[in-house]
């Protein structure tokens, strides 16, 4: 097992360099000029422009810029945003918890509901419940979530007034961001009602962001559960006279979880992509919105290193999923 993990970790290194190269190349290929963007609507005379480019090191040849970049990375320096002159790491670390909180809430919502619905649907194959779950999850999978978010806001927030329109918490609460996770911070801040208010703000965005993962998890759980239930070992287990719930949850679900886990691993990327849209709609101060704006503003260091950080995160999650996969399925572990 240890060598399996070590091998997998070794594979991450070229991936990491590949990503630095890709993000570096991507952002340089985007047409447009960061200095112009920085000056906003003010006029820029050519001399000033040249000076600014030089100060930013953007007048060097590309390979030198890349080497500069890698050199700084090696020292743990992620550079500073061209727009805000704030260090990229500071910005990322102040915004990331918001995205993480939202994503985890969405995943929790999707995971619990999805697994449950999927297993039951598989067991009651062909029943009304099965058809219902499949229909609803298919609709969920087909959902344009930016539209879904707008509709939910219109209905629950504007018409019914049940949930807040946007943001993470009512601004009348002054919550010090100790951890960046609003739910934790509100508990630490000892302001009565703040925690519930934060939770209240989290509900709608989490549902919107969790809609597609929920559908995916429910469908995947159902189909892999069905497949597993037909396997010989399940028949054997049944024949041995094990209790049905033991058969389903210990023998069945454990094996059915393998493809589900893979899909959830793949969903991390999707989740972050969904976060971009969800954050835009709910004015959620997270990294999705931050990056989209940075791409628009040609904020090279932010786009480069923001994407790098996200990519590292995704790799890490996939790595963990891989390891779990190896755990669950010895065949894979010994294959290579």
């Amino acid at each position, binding site marked *: 097992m240890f060598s399996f993990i070590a091998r997998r970790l070794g*594979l991450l290194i*070229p*991936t990491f360099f*590949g*990503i630095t190269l*890709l*993000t570096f190349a*991507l*952002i340089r*290929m*985007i*047409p447009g000029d960061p200095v112009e963007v920085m000056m906003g609507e003010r006029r820029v005379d050519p001399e000033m422009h040249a000076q600014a480019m030089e100060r930013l090191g953007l007048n060097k040849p590309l390979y030198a810029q890349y080497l500069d970049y890698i050199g700084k990375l090696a020292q743990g320096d992620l550079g500073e945003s061209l727009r805000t002159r704030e260090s990229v790491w500071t910005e990322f670390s102040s915004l990331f918890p918001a995205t993480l909180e939202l994503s985890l809430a969405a995943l929790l919502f999707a995971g619990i509901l999805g697994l449950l619905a999927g297993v039951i649907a598989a067991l009651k194959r*062909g029943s009304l419940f099965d058809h219902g779950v*499949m*229909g609803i999850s*298919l*609709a969920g*999978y*087909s*959902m*344009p979530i*930016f*539209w*879904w978010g*707008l*509709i939910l806001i*219109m209905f629950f927030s*504007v018409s019914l007034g049940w949930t807040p329109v946007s943001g993470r918490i009512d601004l009348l609460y002054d919550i010090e961001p100790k951890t960046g996770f609003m739910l934790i911070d509100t508990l630490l801040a000892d302001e009565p009602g703040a925690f519930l208010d934060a939770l209240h703000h989290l509900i709608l965005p989490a549902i919107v962001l969790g809609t597609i993962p929920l559908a995916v998890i429910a469908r995947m759980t159902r189909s892999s559960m*069905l*497949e597993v239930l*037909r396997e010989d070992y399940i028949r054997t287990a049944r024949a041995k006279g094990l209790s049905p719930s033991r058969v389903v949850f210990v023998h069945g679900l454990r094996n059915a979880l393998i493809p589900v886990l*893979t899909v959830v691993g*793949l969903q991390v*990327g*999707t989740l*972050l*992509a*969904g976060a*971009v*849209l969800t954050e*835009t709609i709910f004015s959620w101060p997270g990294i*999705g919105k931050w*990056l*989209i704006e940075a*791409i*628009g503003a040609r904020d090279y260091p932010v*786009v480069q290193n923001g*994407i790098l950080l*996200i*990519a*590292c995160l*995704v*790799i890490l999650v*996939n790595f963990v999923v891989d390891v779990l996969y190896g755990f669950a399925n010895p*065949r894979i572990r010994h*294959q*290579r």
Partner: protein
Amino acid sequence: MSTPTTSVAVDQSLLYPSPYKEFWQAFSRNKGAVAGLMFMILIVFCALFAPWVAPHDPSEQYRDFLLTPPVWLEGGQMQFLLGTDELGRDLLSRLIQGSRLSLLIGLSSVVMSLIPGILLGLFAGFFPRLLGPTIMRLMDIMLALPSLLLAVAIVAILGPGLINTVIAIAIVSLPSYVRLTRAAVMGELNRDYVTAARLAGAGLPRLMFITVLPNCMAPLIVQATLSFSSAILDAAALGFLGLGVQPPTPEWGTMLASARDYIERAWWVVSLPGLTILLSVLAINLMGDGLRDALDPKLKNAA
């Protein structure tokens, strides 16, 4: 049911249903799939004959009828069945015209990612020593970048537009085909029938495309339908972020995005394009489900 007497005279092999018939029987048992198919036929019909089906020119601006509500609401006009948008363009006509683009984007991006995806996946599965890991690292790199961000970056490089949207979506959905194909191939490679084929002397291309690939098709078909629909969704999302197809081309996502400002005054300009996206994507996914049930013998027999 015909009378049993006639069948006696006929050769048994003729009675065995043709694969197509069998497929159709299996497919049509799934009512959702049939409903999806019907809706898709409608959409395809609209797409093919848009200029004749649409009551108005989708770009014609009736500036005296800005934001007219649909006909069943107060203030609705018979000539604009689903109302008009912020420039007085007929919404129904734009939705009909928009079906062309959405189908085009979906289809072309699926083709553009499916073929290279399967090839790369096969190679990755069959050459697990050097080529496989290299391909998978490349895919890992791409997969590590959230799809929408990558698509936004690609569109930012190439500039917004129809073809660039397709390219961006195709690139973004490539890794999932590769991964899926490889995983399926790896699963199949240890099976007895592959070993048997190998021992029987089947060459690599035969092993790849004739022995193994067909047995990996079920998940790929499901993935293809899913990514057809998600291509439509992604295109809409890009449109929503202002990076999609350029005006005045009526693309559903772009329509929705530009109508967002009017959501409180004129719900229909936002709701109807969104609903159209949802229904079309749902129809495709329902069809995908039916296809899978019909194509995958294992699942079919278990029913």
